[in-house]
């Protein structure tokens, strides 16, 4: 009994901002005032949602255009890298893995200025493709790590059996490992989808045209320009969060697994 009381107290504080978010987003603008903030809307309205969707829909679309290819490419590359890093042993391979892995921890500020100069020279600056390439490159360490950890669990004997039959490196990957990889792909895809969707620093520095910006940047701009229309902002926050929240609700188990592999463990 006592446990439930403590858990409910924690849950109350965790959900307080969520209550405020929902209550505000469903209020019509006239109800947004000092006194009514914590009350439920008297006349629930979708005003905030229709307005914010109207403003944010091009950016939602941009985010999908960015997330889908970036996730697919980075996961495919991660799978191949993870295979080599987990199954092929040669001296120094762990050092090479460390070399790759470090890339996922760096503050991206430390590569940002040269990256932007590079994107400008290659005419990719300000485009979705510039962002896609950026996310694929800087996603390599984490996807390689997720797949490496996943393939570590696959017994070497399974691959060796194929090796005896004369299957080469590629064959044993495509015939044996790849078909076993679906759970690994689910974890990596969810992880990349969530991270790229939620990312802000690259998004705000690589795209400057508001029409080309992903949803996170548009949300911040919405908040910056419309100080009073809090219903609009809160509805916008919900709209921006829905895709990753849906992933969390339906595939939470895999989301947590990705979370765990983020903490390295060999």
């Amino acid at each position, binding site marked *: 009994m006592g446990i439930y009381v403590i858990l409910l107290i924690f849950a109350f504080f*965790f959900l307080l901002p969520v209550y405020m978010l929902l209550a*505000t987003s469903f209020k019509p603008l006239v109800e947004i005032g000092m006194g009514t903030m914590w009350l439920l809307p008297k006349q629930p309205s979708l005003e905030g949602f229709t307005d914010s969707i109207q403003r944010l829909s091009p950016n939602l679309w941009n985010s999908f255009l960015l997330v889908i290819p970036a996730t697919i490419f980075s996961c495919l590359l991660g799978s191949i890298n993870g295979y080599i890093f987990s199954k092929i042993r040669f001296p120094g391979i762990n050092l090479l893995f460390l070399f790759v892995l470090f890339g996922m921890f760096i503050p991206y500020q430390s590569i940002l*200025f040269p990256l932007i100069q590079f994107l400008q020279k290659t005419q990719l600056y300000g485009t979705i493709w510039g962002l896609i390439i950026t996310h694929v490159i800087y996603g390599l360490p984490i996807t390689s790590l997720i797949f490496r950890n996943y393939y570590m669990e696959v017994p070497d004997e399974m691959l060796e059996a194929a090796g005896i039959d004369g299957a080469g*490196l590629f064959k044993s990957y495509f015939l044996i490992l790849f078909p076993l990889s679906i759970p690994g792909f689910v974890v990596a895809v969810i992880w990349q989808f969530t991270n790229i969707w*939620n990312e802000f620093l690259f998004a705000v520095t690589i795209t400057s045209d508001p029409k080309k910006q992903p949803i996170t940047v548009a949300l911040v701009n919405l908040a910056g320009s419309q100080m009073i229309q809090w219903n609009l902002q809160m509805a916008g926050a919900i709209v921006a969060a829905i895709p990753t*929240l849906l992933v969390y609700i339906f595939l939470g188990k895999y989301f947590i697994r990705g979370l765990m592999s983020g903490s390295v463990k060999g």
Partner: protein
Amino acid sequence: MYRKKKWLGFLIISPTLAVIGIFVYGFIGATVRASLSDWNSFKKLLSGEFVYTGLRNYERLFADWRFQTDMWNTLFFTVFFLFGCLLIGLILASLLDRPLKGGRVFQSIFLFPMALSLVVTGTVWRWFFAPGILPNDPAGINVLLGQIGLKSLQWNWFTVTDTIGPFNLALIPVIIAAVWQLSGYTMAMYLAGLRAIPESMTEAARVDGANAWQTFWKVKWPFLRPITLSAMIILGHISLKIFDLVYSMTGSGPKNVTDMPSIYMFEKTFRSNRYAEGSAIAVIMLLMVAVVIIPYLISTLKKSD
């Protein structure tokens, strides 16, 4: 046969190694180089001429009051954020580490903020703690405190300029938002750790007459200690480079009370075209993260060998 495989394996990962070599290490090198230059205006950058200025940009930063504030803010933010996440995560995990009706639901409640963008979190908590400077900024939690008769707790939250020593009190709401978002992560880590403890061990402790407190410290904590270290490093490196949350929630605030190195770097580089100084901030951020991360990476990979 085997030798061939090794060469082929190396060949397959070599594009990745090359890309990481250029885009991570090469670009870090370019940033370091820029931080030693005089590219502190658009014109100078455009000239393409590299004038080596030694550590002048760094000296200027460390003498800069705003940057000093940033370093203090980073320190306090990191300490309290870590402490909050570890404590709440441990409490929640201990409560949920038992067969419990509705345990799954509670777990989901505590973990869902992890799925949100820091930008969404920042936007929501900005409204939550909005201190109510009219006309443009209505009050959030202050209204609720007034309505439930706790007027004395009303406070200007992230816009106060009060300090305790070098600690800016305006950071408290930002720390709360960050703990709200990431304590579910420590909960999940601790929960996984607790579930890995063989039941026979806790059972044996119980048979020996150990109370809950003794069982925790003597039996469970040794399992949780390495997890605590991992969580500290993962969360610590997140907080050393925190940007999105602060940028969307408070910005640098009055008198830079909630400013962070990442925000200063962003403004230097992208708002005032002082690329060299911006690069110097980035290099300092990298060094701070590297000190935490490199020993951790080496030790975890050694263990796996």
